[in-house]
């Protein structure tokens, strides 16, 4: 058993990051699945420290939704790093990547705060926009450019910097690919577990597909469906 675990760890440099993503999902689902008590605790946290809880919620959601699709890229960099730097490579790359999404969240929430209230039709409108975005060329060029990873210097600060830069570059491609979907998540909030799961499935599938652009029409349809359902009646 221990030997098998050792072997798995040797094969899967990204195993730790996968565990982090799984924990993020558990935490995200807890208020919905955990019954009245957990929900109350969760609401209390948001009431007591709205900004901190909101920020934590957003980052949690970004980790849960975005980490799984980025694991192969992290692995690709880790297996070509020095053996002692594999874990560090995964952490720096994915840390910078999540940082890009955190910055996006901060900007989006700031814009919302400035605008004051949110019209009820904004969420369906943004989802409709996201569905259209799935059909553009720019979207799929961005998805494909996620697969083009740079080579990293072997050691030292230089390697750290290059690795973080690779995560940011990857984040920028991913942001270009998914910004309307994630803008919808800003509006819906992390309590919308159904929408979170749906969009996470879409962004993960298109990252991992061998021929991503074949998913253009089906994912556009799924997101358009979500737009319809989200229209308040």
């Amino acid at each position, binding site marked *: 058993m221990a030997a098998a675990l050792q072997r798995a760890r*040797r094969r899967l440099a990204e195993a730790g990051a996968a565990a982090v993503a799984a924990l993020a999902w558990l935490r995200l689902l807890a208020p919905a699945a955990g019954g009245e008590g957990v929900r109350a605790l969760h609401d209390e946290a948001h009431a007591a420290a709205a900004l901190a809880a909101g920020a934590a919620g957003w980052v949690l959601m970004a980790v849960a939704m975005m980490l799984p699709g980025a694991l192969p890229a992290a692995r690709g960099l880790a297996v070509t790093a020095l*053996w002692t730097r594999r874990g560090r490579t995964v952490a720096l790359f994915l840390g910078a990547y999540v940082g890009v999404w955190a910055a996006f969240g901060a900007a989006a929430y700031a814009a919302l705060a400035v605008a004051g209230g949110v019209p009820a039709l904004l969420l369906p409108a943004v989802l409709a926009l996201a569905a259209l975005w799935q059909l553009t060329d720019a979207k799929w060029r961005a998805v494909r450019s996620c697969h083009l990873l740079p080579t990293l*210097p072997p050691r030292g600060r230089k390697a750290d910097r290059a690795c973080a830069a690779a995560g940011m570059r990857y984040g920028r491609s991913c942001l270009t690919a998914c910004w309307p979907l994630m803008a919808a998540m800003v509006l819906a909030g992390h309590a919308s577990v159904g929408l979170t799961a749906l969009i996470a499935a879409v962004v993960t599938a298109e990252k991992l597909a061998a021929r991503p652009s074949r998913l253009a029409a089906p994912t556009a349809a799924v997101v358009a469906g979500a737009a319809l359902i989200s229209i308040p009646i």
Partner: protein
Amino acid sequence: MSNGARVRRDIWKLEDEQAWHPITRAYALGVRELTRRNDDPDDPTSWAWQAQIHGLPDFAQDPPYRGQCQHFCFFFLPWHRCYLHWFERILRAAIQGIDEIDAETKAAWSLPYWNYSGGADRLRLPDPFIEETLDDGTANPLFVDVRRPSINRGEPMDALAAGLAEALAPRRYVDDPLAVGFGGAPVSNHWGDNANRTPGPVEGTPHGAVHVAVAGLMGDPAFAGLDPVFWMHHANIDRLWEVWRNDGGENPDPGSEWGTTEFHFHDENRNPVTCTAAAVVDMPGELGYTYEDTDVPDTGRRGRRRRVKPDIPDNPPELVGATEEPVELGSGRSDVEMDVGRATGPAARRGGDPERVYLAVEGIEAVGRPDVTYAVYLNLPDDEDPDDAPEAFYVGNVDLFGIEAVGRVDTDAAHGLRRTFDITELVAELREEGGWDAKAITVTFSPLKHGYDREEPDLPGPVKVGRIGLYYR
């Protein structure tokens, strides 16, 4: 050889028997007939369409039939075998309809192969490909005037472009993506691996290096199939696959994704057909042909040495040294030095020496279409001239055929490029001669020669290597 199977002949042996052997001549007349069909742009049996199956200009794709060539990956060999097979059927059917060809030739006709690895006098194009006219004074369909001038003058390619030692060395068809498998690394799914493609060594040399050496149409995947030499070149690459199997190589499971992935072509009656690796691995049984010669050539001292200890450990290779900065290659010699550390992962647990050593040239990029293949040397002393191809330091080649596809994001096949060499035996030799230092290495790149005059390569811009890495396993 099974009874009734046709034999793909060596063009050199045909021409040794008789200049413009009837099989060669029938090829020329068949090419002429297919070229006539170019008037109908929708005829899948035309010469132009057949070339477009391989590539369309600017790497455009027209699924499922055109712009489909499988490069830098483990589909390279089976896809091209399918491609050649259906092309051969179309050409063979066309030849049956040509009156000047005798019945015996019609019955025996198969695509000949160009074996350039059989000695110094075989490194050039056979005469029927460089003569401008046929004996009746009409234009020779096998002649293409935009090839490299030295090639059309009948001058030899650099012998390193036709070397087989690296091509035939791997014992596995598919290996760890950081190591070297005969057929190239899997690509079909990004799950678990990044998109830095690693072709099998045979796809680099002789395949890519010969494309670059002939140049002209052959130098561009979008037009290569328009040069009649292309088909004979690929017949030879396909033959080398059988040579490798003859040498004990084993193909992947035909039931795997490698075996069952479908590719699309047309038959001689213009009907669509699908083809899989599983359907073409048994050549005489399924396809009805064999090759004249699939004997394993002697690949020198290092090749023999590799046979002594062919076992490969199962753990992945681990990086022990790499360049700090990207490297730019030009039209002359480049020496790159780097530090090497010790293995600290699985390769260290056995204590002492790694079982396998790999040199990887990673993140290869270029501007435009550089007309060059680089020979790579390890720890080449300053006073050694790479133009003498000093075998004691020779690693292999980095060819750049198809490099234009690297880094493009307009098709789903977006990918980077890595070339990996198994240098275990070279390192062992260097160590015996005192030419190995486990703390630092020097890697030298030097362009192959073009023709007797040693033409300089024509580079639209520098060739960039993101990193050179040394891996232990």
